[in-house]
């Protein structure tokens, strides 16, 4: 007798559905893990490797073969020369061997290098280990025969084979904590972190407050509202590189219109270097961030505002609430949900922002944030390992934020 009751576990229909779901998701999962997960793991790997930009090319053996002595008739003496070198200035190549077909019409005259031997028309040399930057010239004295001139060939015509085991720095088992030490070393890291936090917090808050104002402006129907809404989105929609250069030009210390305007209005006596002076540059990039992203906040807030039922305001009006009171006691509490979600998401995104500061100041004048530091370390100082270490720090911060975010999001519906 079998139990009678509701079925347990997954039935065949549910299994088919799950299989289909995974089938539909597989391409995405594959693509994303190839370009997101794998690189992330790679960043962790690189961050503990002593690797610089120059190490990215695996060390190679370079060989050039030629015949010296200009033999003109049979019986002339000449030297068969192999110039050998390790292409990498730092990495070692082990167990280097050279193999080459012995050129027809040449005979050995004198001593062969002890590491080499000639057998069955083949030259074979065991050259041992080469440290970084190793160079050597191998000279083999030869006598030419008539056959050499008959063939009329050059020694470089047939390729030389050189084998060796290069240890590629990204693949070997050399690990170091130096990257992390150099990241945290000195006061630089903390000042970078401070700048990042300033930029992130004020950029996010500023964009949200501006967005709130813009949303309140446009939460009225009037002629031309659509046009204004479109116009106010321009900073966000335009390519960042275009608007960043427009800002740089506008605030140029020598030929910028903003400076000319300020001088003309008597606000300042001499030209101000907006993106080049220490505290001002940070304020400017934060202002740029606010300017560029207030449209996004305003769109979200406006969407939420338009869904607040108007009868609440009518009731408040009847009860004698003034416009400011209505805003403070009705609109704000209604908007609190979207505002907090927006704040968290924008906070993370501003923290991750790279292009804006990179284009405006390149991280100079006290505006270097963590993301720009990754680029600086990896490409300007060409220390890829240190760049990856900064990236790991960024990723750690991100994980911290997202734990907070998901805790919060489970309470907040929407988005």
């Amino acid at each position, binding site marked *: 007798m079998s139990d009678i009751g509701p079925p347990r576990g997954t039935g065949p229909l549910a299994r088919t*559905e799950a299989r*289909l*779901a*995974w089938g*539909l*998701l597989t*391409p*995405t999962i594959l693509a*994303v893990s190839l*370009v*997101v997960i794998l*690189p992330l793991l*790679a960043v962790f790997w*690189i961050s503990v490797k002593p690797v610089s930009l120059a190490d990215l090319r695996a060390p190679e053996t370079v060989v050039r073969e030629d015949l010296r002595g200009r033999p003109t008739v049979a019986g002339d003496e000449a030297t068969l020369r192999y110039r050998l070198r390790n292409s990498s200035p730092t990495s070692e190549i082990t167990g280097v061997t050279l193999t080459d077909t012995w050129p027809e019409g040449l005979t050995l005259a004198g001593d062969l290098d002890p590491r080499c031997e000639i057998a069955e028309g083949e030259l074979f040399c065991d050259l041992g280990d080469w440290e970084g930057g190793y160079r050597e010239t191998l000279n083999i004295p030869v006598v030419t025969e008539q056959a050499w001139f008959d063939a009329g060939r050059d020694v470089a015509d047939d390729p030389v084979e050189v084998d060796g085991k290069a240890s590629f720095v*990204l693949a070997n088992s050399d690990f170091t904590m130096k990257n992390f030490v150099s990241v945290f070393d000195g006061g630089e890291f903390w000042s970078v972190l401070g700048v990042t936090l300033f930029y992130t917090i004020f950029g996010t808050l500023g964009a949200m407050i501006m967005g709130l104002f813009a949303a*309140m*402006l446009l939460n009225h129907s009037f002629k031309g509202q*659509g046009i*204004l809404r*479109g116009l*106010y*989105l*321009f900073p966000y*929609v*335009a390519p*960042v*590189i*275009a608007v960043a*250069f*427009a800002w740089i*030009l*506008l605030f140029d210390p*020598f*030929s910028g*219109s903003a400076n000319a*305007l300020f001088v*003309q*209005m008597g606000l300042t006596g001499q030209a101000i270097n907006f993106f080049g002076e220490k505290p001002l540059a940070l304020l400017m990039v934060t202002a740029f961030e606010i*300017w560029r992203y207030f449209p*996004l906040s305003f*769109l*979200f807030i406006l*969407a939420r505002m338009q869904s607040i039922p108007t009868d609440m305001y009518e009731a408040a009006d009847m009860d*004698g609430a003034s*416009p400011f009171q209505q805003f403070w006691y009705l609109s704000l509490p209604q908007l609190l949900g979207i505002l907090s979600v*927006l704040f968290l998401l*924008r906070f993370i*995104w*501003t923290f*991750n922002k*790279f292009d804006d500061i990179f284009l405006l100041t390149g991280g100079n004048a006290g505006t270097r944030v963590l993301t720009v530091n*990754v680029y600086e370390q990896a490409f300007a100082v060409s220390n*890829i390992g240190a*760049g*990856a270490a900064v990236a790991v720090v*960024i*990723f750690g911060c*991100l994980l911290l*934020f*997202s734990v907070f975010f998901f805790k919060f999001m489970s309470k907040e519906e929407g988005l």
Partner: protein
Amino acid sequence: MKYLRFGYITGPLLGVLWSFVLAVTVAVAMSFATGEAFRPSITGALIFGIPTGLALVWRAQTVIASAVLAVVYFIALSLGIGPVLTGNVSLIARVVAALFMGIGIGWPLVVYLKDLPMGALTRHEFEAAVIKALRGFGYVFFTAIVVIPFYVMLMTSLKNQAELMQNPLDFSIDLSKGWGLFRSYVELITEFNFGTYMWTSFYISVLTVLITLLFAIPGAYAVARLRFRGQAAFSRSILLIYMVPMIVLALPIYIAFSMMGLRNSIVGIVMIYPVTTIPVALYMLQGYFRGLPSEVEEAGLMDGLSRLQVIWKITLPLSLPALASVSLYVFMIAWNEFLLAFMLLDDPSKFTLTRGIASLNSSEIPRQHLMAGSVIATVPIMALFLGLEKFMTKGLTAGSVKG
């Protein structure tokens, strides 16, 4: 606050503040338009704003107020007094400035002050007037900050270096040059290959959109509709991946592409762009799919369609508007993308538009070329955006807080 709530105080106060706001606006606008010396004055705003405010609380009539103020400001400008001071500017500039001041101060102030009595105000009346004034200020302020950078971009591209160095404020364009105004655009296209860059950017963006949709539609459908273990975790990890900063990924991608020889190739770019947009698109689409009534799909299943047929014949036609906004959004991201293009492309024949502009940023190339390049990159995306604004706004709010 209580002491402000009298018509004879609120009126002049708003009068002064608004006069000053307008004075600054007109001074900036006139300076940018003509390059001549206009500047606002606080004392002028004080002297002219108080009587204006008082008069408008007493009797408010738009046309009369504007006309009277325009005449007053023309005289004031000519005499060199008032909220806007000028040096020696032409008559036309003075007339235009006075007209702007008259209408710009008269009309809005009448709207702000028209319902106010001379004596004590209720809190409601007072705050309504203040809010109207704030709103007026908001329109002026936001429009100014949005328009000025784009105006500078456009006008710089039409001028030449020497003119700009001489007077950085003079954006008036010399119409007599005719087509010569567009010299930097012509040079960009003929000498700097910008036509090719535009085409490259265009087809890379279109390919990105297509590939993104190809991956995101089935994925989003599975997350939104099908039940399987780990569904909740999956939709969360989409959001999480969406938050990984590009610069963190750019480093290993750069290394991997260098080693595989994919750097400096369009193929590499087309491989990498969609992956950055798939999570966004997936997130936006699954939100939309969830909102579709599942009964329609179930009816389709009952009538003998398979799941894939249901997606193709029912879900996709129903979600065309969402597909349009997702496509637009993805197109925008791909078109504007800078970091990856900058890191991965070195060969000028393969540049995208943004990479091309970055290459113009050198001291040897005149500024107007840089700005002309910026205009070339900005105009198509703006046109697309304004034309399809409804989809775009929807797409932006549908779940993308990405920047």
